């Protein structure tokens, strides 16, 4: 038996498919189009299956955080719980509000999930398993995020509900704002690897060192802005239950709501994956280069850890106020991001020719120094705030 199948199934299947299709008398171009289409279907299917399992993961993890057991009735460890959930969503009544803008209302959830699925086109699951190696992949990531923004505003507007509109406004304002530190954070691996392509970034880490060691601050920046971009707690103002009920998907029921929900979970997982690709070596791991399937496994594990980090934050930190959130972005994250970008660019261009260790230590040191300065700065401003709060208040003279 040929062992290659187990190390690199995609390649083998692709070769077999091409061979078969051309054997049927199709031209090479048509055959490759069909093979690519099949690949896309396969990728989306895999992502959606993963998505289903994420429902279980999410429910289980949140339960453990809250000291509960979580789903445990259907299947071992409640593993089959998502399926009843899905069935429930599908058979629920599908309500479209009276004043809703029908077409837009129905398109919004599709675009929402679509914008997440688009992201999977560039995710490098392994050295040979990926949708496409785009040379502007990081920019593509931002572009797909823009589609997500669009879906939210479409949903919020078309629902003809003031809570939905308010929630959409909040979410869009947050997403547009946090896009800036996120793009800056994305530029840091770009500078270090010298490429916008995710495959190149991964390869740079395979041949060198994981970028988390070169730019821990960049990773942190990316994590924070990704959480805000996802609209997850502590930045989940779009669905602040106490004030605007449920945000932009307040009017959605049944599977339309399900699409939003699935999109959100998959989005979080995908950002965990991007965190892994850009700072934790992607599919890099022992033997991963020889056995791409193993690389895919490493990738999923790393992405899971990233996803778990995001969940950890979500279920630990309370929601913050919208003005605080925007101030946090504009007055802290964005300046920090630009400072980090400048420092990284300078340090990289100064140190890159000095060899491995000076480069690694220099980059790390520059990050630590910047982080230290930031903390000192924060401490000073916090002290100032405390002083002004504690200062004796002027007493009214009669």
């Amino acid at each position: 038996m040929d062992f290659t199948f187990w190390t690199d199934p995609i390649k083998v299947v692709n070769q077999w498919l091409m061979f078969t299709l051309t054997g049927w008398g199709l031209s090479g171009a048509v055959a490759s189009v069909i093979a690519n289409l099949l690949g896309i279907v396969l990728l989306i299917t895999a992502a959606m299956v993963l998505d289903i399992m994420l429902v279980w993961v999410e429910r289980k993890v949140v339960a453990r955080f809250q000291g509960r057991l979580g789903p445990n009735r259907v299947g071992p460890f409640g593993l089959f719980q998502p399926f009843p959930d899905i069935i429930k969503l599908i058979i629920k009544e599908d309500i479209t509000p009276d004043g809703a803008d029908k077409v837009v209302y129905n398109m919004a959830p599709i675009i929402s999930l679509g914008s997440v699925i688009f992201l999977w086109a560039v995710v490098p699951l392994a050295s040979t398993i990926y949708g496409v190696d785009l040379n502007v992949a990081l920019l593509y990531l931002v572009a797909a995020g823009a589609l997500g923004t669009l879906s939210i505003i479409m949903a919020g507007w078309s629902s003809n509900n003031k809570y939905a509109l308010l929630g959409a406004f909040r979410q869009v304002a947050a997403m547009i704002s946090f896009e800036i530190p996120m793009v800056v954070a994305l530029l840091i691996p770009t500078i270090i690897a010298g490429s916008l392509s995710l495959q190149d970034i991964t390869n740079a880490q395979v041949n060198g060192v994981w970028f988390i060691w070169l730019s821990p601050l960049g990773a942190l920046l990316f994590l924070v802005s990704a959480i805000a971009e996802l609209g997850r707690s502590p930045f989940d103002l779009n669905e602040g239950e106490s004030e605007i009920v449920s945000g932009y998907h307040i009017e959605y029921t049944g599977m339309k709501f399900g699409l939003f929900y699935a999109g959100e979970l998959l989005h979080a997982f995908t950002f965990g994956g991007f965190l892994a690709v850009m700072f934790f070596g992607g599919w890099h791991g022992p033997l991963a280069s020889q056995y791409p399937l193993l690389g895919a496994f490493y990738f999923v594990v790393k992405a899971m850890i990233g996803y778990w980090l995001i969940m950890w934050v979500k279920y630990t930190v309370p929601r913050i106020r919208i003005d605080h959130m925007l101030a946090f972005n504009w007055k802290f994250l964005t300046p920090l991001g630009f400072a980090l970008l400048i420092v990284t660019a300078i340090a990289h261009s100064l140190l890159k020719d000095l060899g491995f260790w000076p480069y690694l230590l220099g980059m790390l040191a520059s990050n630590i120094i910047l982080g230290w300065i930031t903390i000192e700065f924060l401490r000073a401003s916090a002290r100032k705030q405390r002083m002004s709060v504690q200062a004796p208040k002027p007493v009214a003279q009669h």
Partner: protein
Amino acid sequence: MDASQVIFILSAALIIASAVMVVTTGNLIHAALWLIASLFGVAILYAVLEAGFLAVVQVVVYIGAIAIMFIFAVMLTRKEMRDKGPQVNSSWPVAAVLGLLTFGGIWVIFSKWDGLGKLPAEIAGGSNATLNQLGVALTSPDAFVLPFEVASVLLLAALIGSVYIAMNKK
């Protein structure tokens, strides 16, 4: 007819149809959404033209920023969510004639030009080389660094100016 031609015709149809909807539809939010569809078609054309960077930037800038701003502006400048009354002014027949004349004029001028049937040549080095060249061109003093810097100053000025104009001066 090869694959690229099919893609071109499909996206051109999308662009034109959406553009017509942009200028005719009564609902402004729809107009903005149609604009997005039209610009998305333009992005596809960029990809066909092997300007991948521009395609992605088109999506980021137009759909991610400009269109969203349009939708915001529409929502901010409205007491009710829908417009009433005619969406076009009374001189639309004149304007239509002018639009047709413009198109016709450009058509006539183009049709006299002999470079029309030109076919694209292979790009040396592929899209990666193009991207590198673009980066170098934008930042090299021998090329376009000055326009690039001027554009950044323009954006800064626009940022400050628009904040100032839109600010609610009590």
